[in-house]
């Protein structure tokens, strides 16, 4: 771990591979905290989530879709937070989805634990209620949860409990989505929608633009320990130029990514990137940019 850090590694994670062994988790935290490194963990208890494809609630019950209870998140979270408390390890919690989970993180932060967390942008706007047509593009991990959970996410983004908003960009082949919901591969392509979905949340919640942009720029950079995401004299000239009022419709023609698997297909978006600059040079220029 320390060697990888010397080579530029910023954090350690199992990505979405499940954490099944608490002894390994405990040792990873002890070792990481020896060097002050951080672990990125996705809290989802494997056995409680086993076989599930949708939030275990009234909608999945109605649709007959096997459920993943909110407990799958909170039980895993309780374990992680307890181990973090014990070891002093720095932990970033990735892709939270439940109101109860956010309350646990809020409490942990209030107790001074070194934890940060993020949520995926679809979960800020969608809920289990959107599953009614069995559209496999809404099959996500963690699952889209209740409206109450979605509203808790929107509030926790505002009050700072959630440190970063991410795209959870998971492009998959359309073939693995053109099957019944339960057989489909989970995930949504999302990197191109991160900005407009963030702006949409900010508009709907009356959050100032700068606060919203922070969730997708300097705050995630800070979690990673990268001096980026800010505009400062002598800082990196890594910029994104966008028009917050530009309207566009999500579709295969308007997305650059080959992953067209998005639950927002045909949705109207406000906000479009025109240029991306890296080190002061234009790296990306959207077609028809002014």
């Amino acid at each position: 771990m320390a060697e990888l850090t010397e080579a530029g590694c910023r954090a350690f994670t199992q990505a979405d591979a499940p954490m099944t062994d608490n002894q390994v988790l405990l040792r990873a935290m002890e070792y990481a905290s020896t060097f002050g490194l951080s672990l990125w963990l996705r809290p989802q208890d494997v056995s409680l989530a086993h076989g599930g494809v949708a939030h275990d609630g009234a909608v999945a019950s109605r649709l007959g879709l096997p459920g993943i209870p909110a407990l799958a998140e909170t039980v895993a979270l309780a374990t992680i937070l307890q181990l973090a408390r014990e070891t002093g390890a720095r932990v970033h919690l990735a892709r939270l989805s439940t109101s109860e989970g956010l309350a646990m993180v809020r409490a942990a932060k209030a107790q001074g634990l070194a934890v940060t967390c993020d949520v995926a942008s679809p979960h800020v706007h969608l809920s289990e209620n959107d599953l009614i047509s069995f559209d496999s593009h809404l099959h996500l991990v963690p699952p889209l949860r209740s409206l109450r959970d979605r509203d808790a996410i929107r509030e926790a983004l505002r009050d700072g409990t959630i440190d970063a908003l991410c795209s959870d960009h998971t492009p998959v082949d359309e073939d693995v989505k053109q099957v019944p919901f339960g057989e489909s591969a989970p995930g949504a392509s999302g990197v191109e929608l991160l900005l407009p979905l963030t702006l949409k949340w900010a508009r709907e919640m009356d959050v100032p633009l700068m606060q919203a942009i922070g969730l997708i720029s300097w705050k995630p950079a800070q979690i990673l320990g990268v001096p980026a995401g800010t505009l400062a004299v002598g800082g990196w000239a890594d910029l994104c130029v966008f028009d917050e009022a530009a309207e566009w419709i999500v579709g295969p023609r308007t997305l650059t990514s080959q992953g067209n698997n998005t639950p927002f297909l045909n949705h109207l978006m406000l906000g479009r990137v025109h240029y991306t600059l890296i080190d002061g040079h234009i790296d990306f220029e959207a077609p028809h940019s002014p």
Partner: protein
Amino acid sequence: MNPQLTQDGRLRHLLTLDGLPRATLMEILDTAESFMDVGEREVKKVPLLRGKSIFNLFFEPSTRTRTTFEIAAKRLSADVVNLNIATSSQTKGEAILDTVDNLAAMHADMFIVRHSQSGAAHFIARHVAPHISVVNAGDGRHAHPTQGLLDMFTIRRFKGAFHNLTVGIVGDVLHSRVARSQIHALTTLGVPEVRVIAPKTLLPAGVEQMGVKVFHNLDAGLAGCDVVIMLRLQNERMKGARLPSAQEYFKFFGLTSEKLALAKPDAIVMHPGPMNRGVEIDSEVADGPQSVILPQVTYGIAVRMAVMALLAGGTAA
């Protein structure tokens, strides 16, 4: 919004009873009633679907549903093709759409679909050409609308009306597409009290939001019931730590003559089949005077005729 209705409110597909208006359900039941005598005629046929091709597309096994759909289609003079596609891990979605496309190329007019995945019938209905109708013959845990309808038909035949009934559904509601379709139909048709009676491990989260009253005790749940519907308990349920044993289940939730005596004296007993005798229901009850389990199967023919006739009537002849 509702993918199974046309803009003017006629049946386009039959995928679920969830959200179907009361008038549509009644129209199906009344049409089924008009077909009841066809089975008793010397020539058991009417020419309503002459020249139509109906494909039974079963990705999961079936005895009653597949057979009664076949009989029903033949009585309507349709051409019927049966495809029993064994469930296997290779039966992937892409194969489903390929199969559907190929059958459509053979000029199919209607698909009767059974599949292990919830939403499979919706998935196929979204894909087919506008002149093709899809009938859900059971998708995962989601819906079994023709079963729900034949159960309503049975209840109406034996009880006359819906507005004064107490109906108890006993057993594995969690995994049951039949129970879901029954609950939607019963609540839509105005049954004032629909009960589900099961241990907590066999009830889906938030089941009360489907308009039912929850009981965990069989005696309390059966008290005052006009209709007792038993659900099949699959043996796999013992593996998933949902129940300690089949014996214990039978002791606490199995329907015996003794337990049935707690319901109204004229209560009827229903079961969609296939039955697990000695697990959810005692043979004495299954074969007893209050059982209407075999009439359910017979009525399935008229109800499926009605569904197919109404669907075909809704498309260009």
